[in-house]
């Protein structure tokens, strides 16, 4: 498995954020996207997922062109948690599980892993920002996807949450998964390539 990006360019609101961006990530590898606010980290992740059309260039996963197909192989956790406030934590995860074709018994495991088991039947709107983040990350466990695209995954997480997340990513990479994360905070446990997007439009 290999994620390949060739000569990607991003233009947002008439402003060129980056161009000529090429990289590849192989199985078991992680790629960190860093850079100042507004450098295009989120746009790059959405581009890889196929949620944003690149102004130029292409993204391929094992030779498939990016038009939903890369997204199908990916878990995308954006800076929005994609959690429905009126559903319980458990219902939120069951929905993702059914949608992505996971096994139903993975839900309880995902909740337990992130310490949300006691809150399983609480409406998600009662959860704190950090707990909602944990719930969003628990999605990674309910269905198996080789590529994880994570946008600021540790925002709002306490130390314990960050440790759980670190262990999770380590397991994912050890099992031959791929990880692309946009982040400000360093993830010291990861030995990863890094793309530093500059605010001026370089990379």
């Amino acid at each position, binding site marked *: 498995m290999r994620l390949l990006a060739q000569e990607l360019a991003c233009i947002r609101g008439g402003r060129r954020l980056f161009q000529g961006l090429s990289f590849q990530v192989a199985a078991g590898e992680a790629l960190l996207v860093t850079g100042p606010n507004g450098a295009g980290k989120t746009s790059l992740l959405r581009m890889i997922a*196929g949620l944003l059309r690149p102004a130029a260039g292409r993204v391929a996963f094992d030779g498939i062109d990016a038009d*939903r197909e890369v997204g*199908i192989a990916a878990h995308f956790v*954006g800076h*929005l948690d994609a959690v429905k406030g009126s*559903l319980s934590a458990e219902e939120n995860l069951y929905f*993702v599980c059914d949608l992505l*074709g996971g096994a139903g018994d993975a839900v309880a495991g995902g909740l337990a892993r992130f310490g949300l088991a006691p809150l399983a039947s609480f409406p998600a709107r009662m959860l704190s920002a950090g707990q909602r983040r944990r719930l969003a990350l628990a999605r990674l466990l309910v269905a198996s996807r080789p590529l994880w695209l994570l946008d600021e995954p540790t925002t709002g997480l306490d130390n314990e949450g960050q440790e759980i997340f670190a262990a999770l990513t380590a397991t994912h990479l050890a099992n031959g998964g791929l990880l692309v994360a946009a982040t400000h905070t360093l993830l010291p446990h990861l030995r990863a390539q890094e793309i530093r997007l500059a605010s001026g439009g370089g990379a």
Partner: protein
Amino acid sequence: MTHALRAIFVRDLTIAFRVGGGAGTGVVFFLAIVTVVPFAVGPDLPLLGRIGPAVLWIGALLASLLGLDRVFSADHDDGSLDLLLLAPQPLEMIAATKAAAHWVATGLPLVVAAPLLGLLLGLDAKALGAVTLTLLVGTPALTFLGLVGAALAVALPRGGLLVAVLVLPFAVPILIFGAAATNAAVGGTLPFGTPFKLIAATSLAFLVLGPVAAAAVLRQIRD
């Protein structure tokens, strides 16, 4: 695939019927429109009986436009639209499933409420039956047509009114056939079957065209 689509259907229905879900808003609005008409027209029962079916149809049309703009934009606002876009199912099927759930939550209650509200307007049994039947066949057309507006609303934050204005002109034929069929049932010049079959045909066409167009809009937006 059916498993995932059923999950979307159940989720949307659950959210609609929970606190703040807005499933009841349409019916309350429908009730409000129908109740004020007799006050404006006056206590003229034959006149109310004559315009009653049209009032019910106008009320149902406006009520089903209400809340349409939230079908996709609610998911867009909290990030779950990304989940749906990345799901393995075809986007057309996902859009159709969401429309079906929206109809069950907002359109079907209008159909159920119509005969009761018809009593307020002094409609006879035949007219009540005709209005309910035409609404049952016609409201899915409104929802699935409105799905295109709902997809556009993702790109137009707070675009609720704009969506209603965009969808309304295309809903006029449904209104014409619906009211015509009901009038025919209570003694018009047309046979009931002709306009009724036309609504049924419009509904079937929108059942297919709506999701396809909405999915195309969502793919175009991708921002």
